[in-house]
């Protein structure tokens, strides 16, 4: 998609060619920023095991070696690898009955973020960027933080028909987009002149043509300039050492710290990808490692959002592209499983202390309240105060923002 390419290229590398004209009046200062609904998507890439996290089956043949522990909700247990989460279970909303029917990374990454199987729809971050957009927004609405690596399936899908303006800006290894500092050889006057020429060319090109792509292109320049002005939003050295410590020095912890900083700066949606859950071998070893990172960092993040007064307007979604098989393979791994798995929510619009749905004794099937991926997408939007029955109107075409065949799950909503 040409729009995607040009936008990413610009935001990743060409921002330095843009004049850093004064945008101070239009940028919101942190302190003056009014509360807005925001989204943080914590994506457990590879597929977290429900058995080792939210839906343990200790003693069952499928249960694995770990025990279940009590939580702050009487009678509810989760896996022993999540001791910190267990203490704040009353603040979480857990779904144990997701049946996406998808056991494939590529399809799962897209479908669990777009709420659809059919391709071409915007993923959650892009949708929220569009649906929560304000006229005075200048920062990108959607930022995706991840580590470097050839993770092809993690980048499937993005803004879809919403176009370049709502593509996610990718932050790799917590490094800000390249060239956010004005090159010394380019004087402000020269940069401003170049930008005027670009705008003029855009206006001429726009005549008689469909406006969307040109508008998206212009928005990209506008956002790149904003990022140049606000490049300190990527500067984690401005965060207190104790915050670095309590979030965890590992990449997931540091990525979540940056995510909080970006939300605080006014970005509507930030996605953090936590890698390496695809444990086809040594599943229990890998879940010990990954859960230790996830458990402490998630609780720190929720505490921090709460302390900053952000949690009440920030929905935190914790999901992956699938679950893992009840059966344990000969390598001590669990494989892909889409029929019966778990996810969680916290914060804005989510009803705390709810454990929704259940599975049978061996965790092979959903026992009650099956949840489809389309239902989750509706629920996310509703939690953010968005009418999920709305329709996009793009270039004269209308498209429902969420799958009309699905619906929000009222039991999960505050």
């Amino acid at each position: 998609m040409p729009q995607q390419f040009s936008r990413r290229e610009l935001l990743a590398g060409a921002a330095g060619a843009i004049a850093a004209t004064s945008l101070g009046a239009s940028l919101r200062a942190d302190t003056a920023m009014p509360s807005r609904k925001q989204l943080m998507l914590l994506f457990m890439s590879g597929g977290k095991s429900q058995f080792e996290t939210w839906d343990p089956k200790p003693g069952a043949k499928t249960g694995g070696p770990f025990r279940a522990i009590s939580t702050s909700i009487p009678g509810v247990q989760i896996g022993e690898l999540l001791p910190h989460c267990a203490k704040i279970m009353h603040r979480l909303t857990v779904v144990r009955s997701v049946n996406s029917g998808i056991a494939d990374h590529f399809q799962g990454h897209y479908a669990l973020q777009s709420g659809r199987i059919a391709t071409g729809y915007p993923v959650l971050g892009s949708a929220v960027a569009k649906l929560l957009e304000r006229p005075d927004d200048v920062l990108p609405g959607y930022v995706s933080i991840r580590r470097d690596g050839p993770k092809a399936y993690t980048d499937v899908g993005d803004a879809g028909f919403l176009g370049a303006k709502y593509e996610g800006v990718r932050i790799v290894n917590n490094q800000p987009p390249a060239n956010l500092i004005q090159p010394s050889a380019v004087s402000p006057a020269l940069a401003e002149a170049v930008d005027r020429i670009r705008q003029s060319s855009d206006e001429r090109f726009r005549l008689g043509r469909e406006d969307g792509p040109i508008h998206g292109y212009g928005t990209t320049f506008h956002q790149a300039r904003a990022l140049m002005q606000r490049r300190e939003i990527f500067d984690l050295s401005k965060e207190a050492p104790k915050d670095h410590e309590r979030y965890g020095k590992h990449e997931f912890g540091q990525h979540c710290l940056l995510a909080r900083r970006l939300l605080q700066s006014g970005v509507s949606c930030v996605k953090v990808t936590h890698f390496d859950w695809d444990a086809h071998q040594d599943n229990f070893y890998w879940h010990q490692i990954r859960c230790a990172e996830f458990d402490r960092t998630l609780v720190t993040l929720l505490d921090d959002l709460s302390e900053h007064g952000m949690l009440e307007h920030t929905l935190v979604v914790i999901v992956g592209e699938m679950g893992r098989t009840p059966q344990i393979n000969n390598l001590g791994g669990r494989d892909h499983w889409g029929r019966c798995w778990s996810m969680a929510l916290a914060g804005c619009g989510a009803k705390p202390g709810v454990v929704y749905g259940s599975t049978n004794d061996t965790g092979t099937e959903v026992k009650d309240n099956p949840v489809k991926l389309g239902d989750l997408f509706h629920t996310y939007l509703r939690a953010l105060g968005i009418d999920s029955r709305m329709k996009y109107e793009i270039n004269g075409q209308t498209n429902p923002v969420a799958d009309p065949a699905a619906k929000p799950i009222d039991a999960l909503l505050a």
Partner: protein
Amino acid sequence: MPIDPTKSRQLAEHKHDAPLMCCVFDASGRFVIAGGRDRKVVCLDVAAGKTTTLDGHESWTGSVVRAGAELVLTADYAGRVIAWDCTGESPKPRWNIAAHANTIYAMAASADGKLFATGDRDGTIRIWQTNDGQRTHEITGLEHPVYGLAFHPDGKQLVSADRQPKKPRLKLWEFATGNAQRSIDVPQLSAYRRVEDIEWGGIRAITLSADGNTLVACGSNEYSGPACALLFDVATGELKRKLASTLKGSYYSAQFHPQGFLLTSGGDVGKGEFRAWDTSKDESLATVATPGPCTAIDIHPDGTRCVVAQMNGKGSYPDAGTLTLFEWSE
């Protein structure tokens, strides 16, 4: 009685309702104690041909060793070690300790049985007195799971094997001081996949020859296999030989027979084997195929028999286990 490793026959097969991961004869050879993917320890009375189960663990039992004339020790994924007194009619617990806060992946006993060592997920190694389960030493700083341990016959040194990504390591420790005497990188047993950014390999087991000169490291030769065992010169750290199976999977266990030949056991999806090797040659002396991956092998104290633990089930999902006894003839 000298035996011929090329002449073996199956004596008995005992099924268990969970995949098995470890097994050992007690010092008298009367019992086989085994553990696997459930909380129950399996006890096979060899002469009676009957199995019972022993309670006490709260998690999978992944390691078992014979320690001295009386005890067999079992260790689980929750970090607990139980000492089973095998001198009576049936094994009874003598002591039971919370040895680590997380999974114990490796355990070994000294040649005289007075000490044993445990290694955990975080790379911590602990040395204990066998008679009472009191800790005597601790080695820290490996930072990667300890998948193998072996006491040197000199009684002063301990070898560890870990799963450091890309370069699994063998380390020779003077355990009284915690000083590392030698470190050997074993990249041949790494199966690091950049796509997943996960180390699939690692050194899955180690064993030392009776003279302490040869160290064997088991695993898979990179991602695509085959199962192999690497022989190192302990004095120099030099790789002396690679013993490769025709199986694509991994070797999980190895043990020297008192006559000097080496036994390896391992497997792939839905099949397994154990082999006897003359360690001066690349070709194996004998191979015995098994229906499921052989996760462990142990030689009877009289040297005439061995037992292998297997994982059995459909395709790549084992849901049962087998203890199979074999006997060699002259």
